């Protein structure tokens, strides 16, 4: 193992710190969905079938069955894949960092990143307020039209993706925007119940 500049670094260790040897394993006994890795689509996804197997989604994923727990796969009302991420200027829900004026100055509001192609199709201009809606809720965000996102071609279809940071919501700042948890489905991975907030389905339109 080496330092970034290439010199040896005896202090460091391999990244899978929960395994004694520090490496990933292909055979993982003891997991609810093991022992071999398998590709499943997200609980909400843009395709009707899994191109790798007959099983579309993880059969042991944790889902809930209240009225709010509806999952929209290949629904024409929610055709766009959505992901959530962080920015380095805010931390987690932003409940501490949004009260730091210098940090808030650099990342003041909820935004939604989208490709030029999607923005063009929807008539959305960069910096404009747009509405993002899922089967679970809707919120307003500032459109950031960027070259860093581009449409995917998935199973012969053009699929668009948008992404939002999840640091905003509640009382401060007044114009900061809502929590992205409003959009995300309640579903959990089979072992730890970590919710599936990184891939779900939405629609976007001009506010």
């Amino acid at each position, binding site marked *: 193992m080496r330092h970034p500049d290439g010199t040896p670094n005896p202090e460091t260790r391999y990244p899978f710190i929960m395994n004694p040897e520090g490496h990933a394993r292909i055979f993982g006994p003891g997991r609810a969905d093991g022992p071999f890795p398998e590709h499943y689509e997200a609980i909400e996804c843009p395709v009707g079938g899994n191109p790798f197997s007959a099983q579309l989604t993880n059969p042991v994923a944790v889902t809930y069955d209240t009225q709010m727990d509806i999952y929209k796969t290949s629904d024409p009302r929610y055709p766009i894949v959505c992901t959530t991420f962080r920015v*380095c200027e805010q931390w987690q829900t932003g409940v501490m960092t949004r009260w730091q004026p*210098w940090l808030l*100055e*650099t990342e003041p*509001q909820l935004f939604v990143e989208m490709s030029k192609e999607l923005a063009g199709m929807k008539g959305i201009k960069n910096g*404009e307020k747009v509405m993002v809606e899922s089967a679970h809720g809707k919120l307003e965000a500032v459109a950031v039209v960027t070259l860093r996102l581009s449409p995917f071609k998935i199973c012969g279809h053009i699929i668009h993706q948008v992404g939002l940071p999840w640091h905003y919501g509640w009382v401060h700042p007044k114009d900061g925007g809502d929590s992205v948890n409003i959009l995300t489905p309640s579903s959990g991975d089979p072992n730890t119940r970590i919710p599936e907030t990184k891939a779900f389905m939405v629609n976007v339109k001009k506010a």
Partner: protein
Amino acid sequence: MSSGKAFLIDTTLCTACRGCQIACKQWNQLPATKTINWGSMQNPKDLSYDTYKLVRFQEHNGPENKPVWYFFSDQCRHCLEPSCKEAVDGEVSDGILIDHQTGAVLFTDKLEAMGPDDVLNVCPFDIPKAQEKTGFLAKCTMCVDRVHNGLLPACVKTCPTGAMNFGDLDKMVKMGNGRLAEAKTRFPGATLTGLEDLRVFYLLADVPKMYYTYAEADLPPARMDRKTALKIIGKSIREFTGNLDSFG
């Protein structure tokens, strides 16, 4: 070659974490300005009386249609022959000083005796900014207070990637040329700007205009009003004839 200090800003190592931007506000105790997301991560939108350091963001379609995201950590270049000082000298004595130890270009309180326009119009990098209410001017100080006490400027101290560097001018020139040679293996169009006449050298992976309009000196006359241009020309003629006299 002139002595004193210099910055080397290696944009090829910058991740736009904006630590420099915030460390600058912290050391100088500058307030946050009210911002909105305007369709860019660049915020505040521009330098101001309360913002001396700003990371500018630019997106382009790069080679093979892959996007490139350029980050430009903007600040006063501390010119060896600052046009702001030329514009002020003769109007207000000691309005702008050059610190003899570091070469930092410093605005003083005496500058408040004159309007901001003469200074605003001559800077080829669009750096100084006036306070809206008072017209008082402010910009990067090179953290001379820190440097005189053996510390690095706040922006350099906080940089986690090695993009911001500071030291003796000759050492920075040497480091810049070394980094340029290295960068050229990855970015054939890499350039190093400011070596001849500035104390801030930018190592850029692409042509300067791809980063920011004023990444490189925009010729002053494009942004200068007639009065200021004539004054500067007048001054250099006076200096020239003065030099002739001394030969006489």
